[in-house]
C-alpha cells in the first residue's frame, strides 16, 4: 500500500520536501512509519515528533491503510 506523508516546519526542512509517497507493507502502524522515516532521515531523531493520521492526532498503534494522509511535525507554536 502507499500512503501520503506531509512534513511541516523543522521536519519539512530536514526532509527537504513538503510531501512524498511512502510504500508500506500491509498491517504497518503509525509507529512503524515513524521508525522508517527516522532511519531515512536521522536528523528527525533529535526532534520531538508529533504525527497525525487523516487530519487528526492518532494512536501510534493505529494500523495504516492505502491512501492515508499522515503528517509529521514538531511541537506546535501557533497563537
Amino acid at each position, binding site marked *: 500500500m502507499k500512503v501520503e506523508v506531509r512534513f*511541516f516546519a523543522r521536519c519539512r526542512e530536514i526532509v527537504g520536501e513538503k510531501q512524498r509517497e511512502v510504500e508500506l507493507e500491509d498491517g504497518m502502524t503509525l509507529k512503524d512509519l515513524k521508525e522508517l522515516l527516522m532511519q531515512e532521515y536521522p536528523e528527525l531523531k533529535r526532534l520531538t515528533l508529533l504525527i497525525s493520521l487523516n487530519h487528526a492526532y492518532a494512536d501510534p498503534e493505529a494500523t495504516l491503510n492505502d491512501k492515508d494522509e499522515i*503528517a509529521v*511535525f514538531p511541537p506546535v507554536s501557533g*497563537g
Partner: protein
Amino acid sequence: MITNEDFSIDTLVEKMKQPGIGGIVTFLGTVRGDAGITTLNVEIYKAMAVGELEKLKREAREKFEIEAVEIVHREGELNVGENIVAILVGAKHRKDAFRACEYLIDELKKRVPIWKKEG
C-alpha cells in the same frame, strides 16, 4: 478560520453582537518585536488545523456557558505589530467569556498545527 489577509477586530466584534450576549471577550495576538526580529512566518497544516479549531470551539461551548465563539488565525509572512490571531467569545455574563477565551488560546497553542518562525 484561517486567512492570508489581515482582519479587523472591530468587524469581528460587530458580527458577534446579538441580543442574548451581554459581554464579548477578545484576545488579539500580534507580532512582538523582540531583538533582531523583523518578520514572523506562520506555517499552517490547513487540512488539519480547520478541524482542530472546530473541535476547540465545540469544547468551549460544552465547558462554558457561552453564546458565540470565533477564532481567526493568519498564515504567511507577517511584520512586527501585525495581527496574528483573534479569539472572540460572547456570553450572557463576563466570567464564562473570560474563562473560555483563556481556555481557547491555551489549547490552540498546544494542539492546533501552526508553527511560527522568526525572520
